[in-house]
């Protein structure tokens, strides 16, 4: 058998489990050179280019549009034009049957770390048992899958508690009108977000996360959860909000929303938030419970107005604060935005 060179899905960001195959740059079976572009991937953050590390003939194991797990096999670069469908990583004995099962279920050899040999029994154990007959599989975007893996890792939600206060719509709008003097647009959500960030400077335990010990962020970087026009849930980040004027903040927010809608966000616009706000103010939702993001300690959820009032909920990691502290935080916030 001829030598094979394996091309894996690279790890582009520490938090990404999945990537989307957007383009196969060469044809199946084509002769390629070392360094030549083979595959273009899209992660939650960015586009990634995968090149070949050897000369040879390329045999793809994926198609355009596939969602692939990090470290799974994209392609094999083989010395021979015959495709041997199965890469056998040099350090493992994987039976042909096991390889077929892995391929059919999109499992990469890295899932069997530490095993010298892999049989079909080993693979079957990894495959999630199929759901009950009445259920059908729901397709999930890679973004969602990515989100799921983040949530699974976010231990804060295991210890979360929340406090809710009602804010008055009219009073908040009046305050906004005062602040903006009609020179720029500022939504209720954006206004609350800005004021919340200023307040967080005085309440560092909500701008922190727990990982055995409590770590507080040095800056208040706001994460705004966006999920509009079918673009999927993304958290756009504005760094060091207290350092911006309200007008600058509002402008930045508009920029980010535009960038989100055009799929043109950069990595640093999608990462690095220390506190998240989830705005449901114009959705008609009366009440909801947001989930705390990975490596954060709290999240603010804003609901829609019912009879002139709307819910503002602070959900927080109880290891960092308690209900009383949260209540006083919200009370202070209310006072500021309704003044």
């Amino acid at each position, binding site marked *: 058998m001829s030598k094979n060179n394996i091309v894996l899905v690279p790890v582009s960001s520490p938090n990404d489990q999945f990537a989307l195959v957007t383009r196969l740059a060469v044809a199946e079976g084509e002769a390629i050179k070392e360094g030549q572009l083979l595959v273009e991937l899209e992660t939650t953050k960015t586009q990634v280019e995968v090149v070949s590390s050897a000369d040879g003939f390329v045999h793809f194991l994926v198609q355009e549009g596939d969602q692939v797990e990090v470290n799974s096999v994209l392609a094999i670069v083989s010395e021979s034009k015959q495709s*041997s*469908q*199965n890469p056998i990583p040099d350090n493992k004995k994987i*039976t*042909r*049957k*096991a390889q*077929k099962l892995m391929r059919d279920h999109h499992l990469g050899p890295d899932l069997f770390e530490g095993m010298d040999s892999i*049989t*079909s029994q080993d693979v079957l154990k990894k495959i999630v048992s199929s759901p009950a007959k009445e259920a059908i599989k729901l397709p999930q975007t890679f973004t969602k899958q990515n989100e799921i893996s983040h949530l699974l890792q976010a231990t804060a939600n295991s210890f979360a508690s929340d406090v809710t206060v009602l804010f008055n719509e009219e009073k908040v709008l009046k305050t906004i009108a005062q602040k903006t003097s009609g020179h720029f647009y500022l939504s209720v959500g954006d206004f609350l977000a800005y004021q919340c960030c200023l307040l967080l400077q005085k309440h560092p335990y909500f701008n922190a996360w727990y990982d055995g010990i409590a770590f507080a962020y040095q800056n208040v970087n706001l994460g705004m959860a966006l999920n509009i026009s079918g673009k999927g849930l993304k958290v756009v980040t504005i760094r060091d909000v207290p350092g911006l004027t309200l007008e600058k903040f509002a402008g930045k927010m508009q920029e980010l929303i535009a960038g989100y809608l055009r799929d043109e966000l950069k990595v640093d616009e999608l990462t690095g938030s220390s506190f998240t706000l989830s705005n449901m103010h114009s959705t008609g939702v009366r009440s909801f419970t947001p989930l705390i993001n990975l490596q954060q300690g709290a999240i603010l959820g804003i609901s829609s107005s019912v009879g002139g009032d709307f819910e503002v909920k602070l959900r927080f990691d109880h290891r960092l604060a308690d209900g009383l502290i949260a209540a006083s935080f919200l009370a202070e916030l209310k006072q500021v935005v309704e003044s």
Partner: protein
Amino acid sequence: MDKILRHEIMLKSWKIRCVEEKLLELNHSGLLHGTTHTCIGQEVISAIFSQLVRDEDQVFSNHRCHGHFLATHDLTYELFCELLGRKDGLSQGIGGSQHLHHKNFLANGILGGSVPISVGAAWVLKKKSNGSSISFLGDGSLGEGAIYESWNFSALHSLPQLFIIENNFYSQSTHQSETMAGSIAARASAFGLNFLQSSIWDLDHLDRTMREAFSAAKSNKPTVLQVDCYRLAPHSKSDDHRSKKEKDHYATIDPVNLFLAESEQDIDLKSKLENIRAEVQLASDLALKCALSNSRSYLNTPDDLSQLELKIISGPSHSIVDQLNTSLRELLKQNKNALIVGEDLRDPYGGAFKVTRGLSDLHPEKVINFPVSEALIVGFSSGAAMLGEKVIAEIMFADFLSLTFDQFLNHASKVTNLSNGKINLPFILRTPTGGRRGYGATHSQSVEKFFAGIPGINVLLPHHRIDYSNLYQRLMSVITRPTIVFENKTLYSYRPQELPASWKISTGPRGMTVVSSGDVPDLTVLAFGGMGLECEEVMFQLEQEEIQVDLLLPLWVHEFELEEILRSLEKSKKIVIVEEGTEGLSLGAELLAQLHGRLPFSHRHVLSQRGIVPAAKHLEHSFLPSREDIISACLEIFDE
């Protein structure tokens, strides 16, 4: 000559002429389908013959056989029925004019082709010390090589044979001066055959000479009798470009015409002649009234070999060549009338592959070394089998079967159908097949496919796990048709090894052996002949990859056991067919065509490319299907 005898002979000749003329008439009026080759002008030969031939003689004739037939069996009505395709025909219309079969009479349209068969018959008649084997030939057939193979052997073994050559100087439209070198006499004497000559124009002499010929044959002095004559009618229906002058001349001296002229004066005789004419007319009319034949005997019904009940070997055993030797030994022991024939079989040599070692020492009269005459070997086997001998013939290399093709295609495989099921030819022909020994293009082929397509013969391609020590005795007791057994030569030294305990091996009712490495096959592999062993080795390797295989090993290839195959294919949906023969009308292609549409499946086919088997070892290895080829086909289809 005695007047009464002479009249008898002439009346008989006249009857034959009436029949032949009637047949031409039926032909021209469109009532007789096909063609006839009348013996008009040559009848006296048959008429004298009819005085001398006995029931214990075997008579072989050619396309111009009506006279010979009527001389042997006076069955005018049945003859007409046969040619008119009626129920009462000799073979119910299946054989027709050129292929008359009845009891001890056999005619075939291939010139010279039945002469080797007559030799086999002669051998048995000699053993019985009763009867002669008589072949009618035209001078035109003396171009065929099979005749000389036969004459050589007949003379060598002093067989009770008579070869009557009706020398009418023409071969269809070609005069003898264009086709024959030397003389017929010289041909006979070259082999040391007794030679006699006469003509139809001296009845006395012809009668005396034929009696002498019969007597010589009977005393094991094989004889060639040349009878000069002239065919008055065309070769078949109307093809005749001979000069009118010539034909007119012979018509004036034709014995029957002369007799007719004579009878003008004799009222008694004349009325006898008219009665005979009327008799023939009546027979013809009755035949036309007879119901049309509804026989299906032209269809081939292969032998039901499921009765073979051969054991399979799953553990250590003797080498296959030893098992074969045992089987032949047993066969010779159990059968008084067994015969093993072929080249170089006798001790001390014991056969090219030593399969027959020790046999001639034990049974010297039953093991016969033949000259290098392959067509004769098969024809001989047919003739001897026809008279009840249990014949196992060997052709030294399967490649040489090409020289026997006519005997199988046009004679052995057809006799049973042509005789409407009355005559069986159960003989076995065994032959070493396959390459991998560097013997080169004409000693390494796998030619099964060329014979598996002939309707009417059994073709076996046994694998490495059958119990060869019982093969030939069992086979001989079960077959009614000629049977070819292709023995893979690389398996001769193979000793069946034990299979892993977890594997299963079994043989179905239709002779297919199945070796399974697991309960549910991922893959079905079907291997023909010697390739079965390679595939079994591959199964081990695939097992390391957790790929479970059903290995199907068919025993015969003249038909396929589709049920057995489908049973496995239902589960695996994938089949790899492996054979050693070349691409192009291969066994596997036929199998795939038969499997197609019965259920969805994918396949791979491993076989040799179209080409010749090269002699050099490494080239031979890359031409013939290798273990690597099989593995890669299996892995490829598994991954789908």
